[in-house]
């Protein structure tokens, strides 16, 4: 039987479901293109034109310009594709984690380490 129970929220966590998928398709498609070196170069050469080509909406464009991961997620971005965007700037998952949690990278690394104790 299909059960479409509303799941309780998990704090600080966005489930990338159909609702998010509908919201973020253009943004995610652009980020997926960054697998290719030529695409990364094209983006670097003219960010605005590149975003326009993929039909990003204003919220998505603003989040890309701000390099702000929480805003990108809110605009429908999926972390697997956003990681390729972050890669253009040489950001690691720890840099991205620090940005999202409002910690310094050092504090974020320490937070990770402590959970192993």
């Amino acid at each position, binding site marked *: 039987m299909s059960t479409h129970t509303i*799941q309780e929220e*998990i*704090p*600080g*966590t*966005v*489930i*990338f*479901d*159909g609702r998010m*998928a509908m919201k973020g*398709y253009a943004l*995610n*498609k652009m*980020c*997926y293109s*960054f*697998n*290719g*070196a030529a695409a*990364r170069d094209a983006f670097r050469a003219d960010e605005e034109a590149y975003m326009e080509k993929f039909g990003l909406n204003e919220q998505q464009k603003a989040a890309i310009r701000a390099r702000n*991961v*929480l805003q990108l*997620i809110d605009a429908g971005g*999926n*972390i*697997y*594709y*956003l*990681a*390729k965007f*972050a*890669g*253009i700037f*040489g950001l*690691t*998952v*720890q840099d*991205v*984690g620090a940005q*999202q*949690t409002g910690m310094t990278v050092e504090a*974020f*690394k320490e*937070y*990770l*380490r402590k*959970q*192993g104790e």
Partner: protein
Amino acid sequence: MARIIGGLTSSHIPAVGNAYARKMFEDPYWKPFFDGYPPVHGWLKENRPDVAVVFYNDHGLNFFLDKMPTFSIGAAASYENQDEGWGIPTIGTFEGHPELSWHIIEGVVNDGFDVCSCQEMAVDHGFTVPVQLFWGDREENPIKTIPICINTVQHPLASPKRCYEFGKAIGRAISSFPGDEKVVVLGTGGLSHQLDGKRAGFINKEFDLMCMDKIVDEPETLAKLSIHDLVREAGAQGAEFILWMAMRGALGDKVAEVHRNYHIPISNTAAGLMLLETRA
């Protein structure tokens, strides 16, 4: 008939690929992670499997949201590791075993699994890092591979129970292949980690250790977890544990734990390594 001799699990963190390329095996940050692997190397040298069937998840290299299959099975003669958009050096192609792939695909479709067959498939770190960690130089330690990709990108994801059952069907199919191949099954990814959102950096040691314990003799208990349970307890990307469940399903009823390692953190992740041997 082909025979499954054991199962291996490993994290597949991209940063490991980098550290491996730079041979940072003795670096203090990396040593507790890399030190888990030599016992498995010894076991592989002794048991010499011919094929590795690798449950992994694609991270946006071969699959995009335009066509996102739940279960995909590689059926190619070889699989290429391609640029994922950031710094990991690509590490060439991996040899396939298309005859066994097709035998598996026929078996599982016949068993009511709705798979996507892939006659061409680029593989990312989710597949390449564990194969490299276990086999190293593939010239020296040749291994045929069959990548089996399970969707962890677009929800709804297949439940732990469905993945466990899928693994069982894969196991039955392998065991009915007319050949004398020795097969190991890999479950890659996990354990607890979360990359995105305000909860980024979340790790749950207690839950991970429970999973490593129970997956040996009580996988049915873990099969009762929902995806929502996994995301809550193991983090958004901790849902990759479904790949371990598929691996475990393929091993059959009885297994013995031969080796394990658990270390926090590598990158944002709790890294878990296990070697399970099948028992009659």
